[in-house]
């Protein structure tokens, strides 16, 4: 037996080395073993200053400055970065004064403001529940594992720790908790806040110049000015990722399009990242503060468009999509209507009966409509017969007759069965 084990040691070791090589390359390792998660997406060809792309050296310099900025914010905001602000607040005892950075303080103040503004549907204080449901970064790699719901007692216990009043923001960037177990999580606001900081950094750096471009931090995008293409400029068109692309072969594809955008922040929250399926139901990573459970309102994707004239538009858009995800459909539509009047917000909500609802100041097109639009205005040459109505992924729903009871359609059931079979 010992001989056998000895013999097996080398192949086994080789196997694990190979496996670790396979998974290396995901994230960049910082000192101390922390792996940066947030990716900044800013192509040189997508950024224009006074109508021109930056030179290679200018672009590299800008990107290295932005990388420092984004990594610094991630260190502040991550629940995992040792010595980071949020990690220290979460580990703090009741009454302990925690000194945080100006960014953490500003983001936390914003988060509490949005919590009130969004009727408590968004909250930065739900981390105990996120941990309980297995969606905290500590569970990375096993988010998708099918599992039962936690016991009622544990759920009630975790929920009792989630309350904004347990956190007091003091003078000089200090935070004090009144309950030791209360924990923060910036998952619903961090990337939007980063977008805001990046865009203001760029605008400040090139003050006095016209800046056009697209900046992306994962599912958050800032669209500055106009899209410049072949010397001409026009408004941007944004494709909403199809959260059910698995049904059409699994290639990333676009289901709907937002047309004619300029100077806005756009964010999408959807249920096809960090989720699992159990007993025919999808459990997304977005926790409903009201129930303490993963959001279950029949909403599968929310995209919000916030004009950049609204302060912190990126952070606001990020928190909005999270909040709307947890609202009953009619409440979501009503709330977005209010946000549209107050802030000029536009939004698209996709439901599990594969309908979509557009609210506020947005022009939404399905695939066929966008192909026709693109042929007419963008010089493309799509064959419109390739986009028949019956093959549209999502169909327009009537806002006036929307109901809180969303019955999943057959396609949706097929999708859930596919996920269940896969895990």
């Amino acid at each position: 037996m010992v001989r056998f084990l000895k013999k097996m040691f080398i192949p086994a070791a080789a196997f694990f080395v190979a496996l670790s090589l396979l998974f290396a390359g995901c994230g960049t390792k910082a000192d101390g073993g922390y792996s940066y998660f947030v990716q900044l997406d800013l192509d040189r060809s997508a950024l224009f200053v006074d109508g021109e792309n930056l030179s290679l050296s200018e672009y590299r310099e800008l990107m290295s400055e932005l990388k420092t900025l984004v990594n610094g914010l991630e260190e502040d905001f991550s629940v995992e970065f040792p010595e980071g602000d949020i990690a220290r607040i979460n580990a703090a005892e009741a009454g302990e004064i925690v000194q945080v950075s100006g960014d953490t303080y500003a983001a936390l103040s914003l988060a509490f403001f949005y919590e009130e503004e969004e009727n408590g549907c968004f909250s930065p204080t739900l981390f105990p529940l996120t941990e309980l449901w297995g969606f905290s970064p500590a569970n990375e790699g096993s988010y998708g594992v099918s599992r039962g719901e936690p016991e009622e007692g544990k759920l009630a216990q975790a929920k009792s720790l989630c309350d904004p009043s347990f956190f007091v923001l003091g003078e000089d960037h200090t935070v004090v908790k009144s309950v030791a177990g209360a924990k923060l999580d910036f998952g619903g606001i961090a990337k939007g806040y980063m977008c805001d900081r990046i865009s203001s950094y760029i605008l400040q750096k090139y003050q006095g110049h016209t800046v056009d471009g697209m900046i992306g931090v994962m599912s958050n995008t800032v669209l500055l000015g106009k899209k410049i293409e072949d010397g001409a400029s026009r408004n941007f068109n944004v494709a909403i990722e199809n959260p059910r692309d698995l049904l059409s072969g699994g290639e990333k594809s676009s289901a709907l399009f937002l047309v004619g955008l300029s100077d806005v922040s756009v964010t999408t929250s959807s249920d096809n990242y960090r989720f699992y399926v159990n007993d025919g139901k999808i459990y997304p990573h977005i926790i409903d503060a009201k129930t303490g459970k993963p959001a279950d309102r029949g909403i599968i994707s929310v995209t919000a468009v916030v004009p950049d004239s609204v302060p912190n538009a990126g952070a606001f858009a990020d928190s909005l999509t999270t909040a709307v995800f947890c609202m009953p459909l009619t409440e979501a539509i009503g709330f977005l209507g209010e946000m549209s009047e107050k802030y000029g917000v536009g939004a698209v909500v996709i439901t599990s009966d594969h309908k979509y609802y557009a609210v506020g100041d947005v022009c939404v097109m399905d695939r066929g409509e966008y192909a026709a639009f693109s042929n007419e205005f963008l010089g493309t040459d799509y064959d419109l017969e390739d986009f028949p109505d019956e093959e549209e992924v999502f169909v327009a729903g009537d806002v006036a007759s929307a109901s809180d009871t969303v019955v999943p359609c057959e396609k949706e059931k097929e999708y859930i069965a596919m996920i269940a079979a896969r895990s």
Partner: protein
Amino acid sequence: MERQEKIRAIKNGKFFAKGDIAVFAVCLLLVAVFTLFSFGAGKESGSVFEVYAYGEKIATLPLDEDAYYLYTENGGKGSLARVFFEEGKSYTDGNLILVKDGKVCIEQADCPDKTCVRMGAKNSGEIICLPHGLTIKVKGGGLGGDV
């Protein structure tokens, strides 16, 4: 064990011991996994390809029209021109890009490593020539917005 004894023991041993089979099984499995990762998931073939010089898009060209293009690079700036290929002529000042049967490849290059040439003809994914700062990205035939 003496050296001679060891040699005898190895000579008398079987060609395939259980452990050896396990080694081969692991190797095969790894080959399969890598193959799946690199070639799997039947990618949709694209209809156009984009040419980037040092991260900057300099052209978007069709895949359905057979043609030769010459990419040249000078001090961090790249340019592209359509060329008419002459049999036997060797291009020494850049990458010769060939579009044929809906696929794009780099036919000739004067970069030191020629990795780009060895990447072959593609109708999805990317071809990269690091020394010349050239990236060719094949874009899907599907609909797409700016973001």
